[in-house]
């Protein structure tokens, strides 16, 4: 199965409905997605996302390609924003289309786990009191990403009806 891979790094917002419609149109039985949103609270005023412009898209494409190699996918989409984002705004979209719902959902989970640990983005929190702080990497994210180290996929065999 050859997957249509779409990867984008941008400052602009993205249209989740339009992105998922593109995946729905590939003819599979299902499309899974995860959208990350800036959480407010704690006096957070804005989140600043820095990235390594020279290699970000290459690494995101590699992660998407890895998902397509592990699961029977018709399409994979990974979009990540950078720059200054406000609470409630979208940060990232990971999505996958497949004839098998388990494959679509597991691939989406894999995509977001690896984007969090293998794509060169860094978050800085800016607070209303004028202070700011780099977000620290979390051991929990490394553990989530490590679940997929084995290289396997646990996909059902039968397509959706």
């Amino acid at each position, binding site marked *: 199965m050859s997957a249509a891979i779409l990867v984008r790094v941008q400052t602009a917002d993205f249209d989740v409905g339009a992105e998922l419609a593109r995946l729905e149109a590939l003819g599979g039985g299902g499309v899974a997605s995860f959208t990350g949103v800036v959480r407010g609270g704690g006096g957070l005023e804005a989140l600043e996302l*820095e*990235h390594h412009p020279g*290699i970000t898209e*290459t690494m995101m494409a590699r992660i998407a390609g890895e998902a397509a190699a592990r699961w029977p996918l018709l399409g994979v989409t990974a979009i990540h924003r950078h720059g200054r984002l406000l609470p409630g705004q979208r940060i990232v979209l990971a999505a996958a289309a497949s004839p098998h719902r388990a494959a679509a959902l597991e691939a989406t989970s894999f995509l*977001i786990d690896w984007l969090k640990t293998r794509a060169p983005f*860094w*978050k800085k929190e800016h607070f209303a009191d004028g202070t700011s702080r780099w977000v620290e990497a979390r051991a929990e*994210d490394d553990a989530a990403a490590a679940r997929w180290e084995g290289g396997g996929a646990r996909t059902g065999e039968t397509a959706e009806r």
Partner: protein
Amino acid sequence: MAIELLYFARIREAIGRSAETVSPPAEVATVAALVDWLAARGGGYAEAFADRARVRAAIGDGFVGPDAPIAGAREIALFPPVTGG
């Protein structure tokens, strides 16, 4: 040997610049040795690399470990663990 270094996030801020060209001596053969050599400059460099466990590197378009050789590398990025997604 001239190498273009790129710094990101907390490391970029501590050093106070996002890129520079350096020419380490021949005995600086690995990423870890390069970081040691930079940290020995003191000041912002020492601060940037104070916690070696929180330094990551990329050569070309791939992440590499501290033991990765730097021979032949034209561009090396140094940064904290990533926190995107």
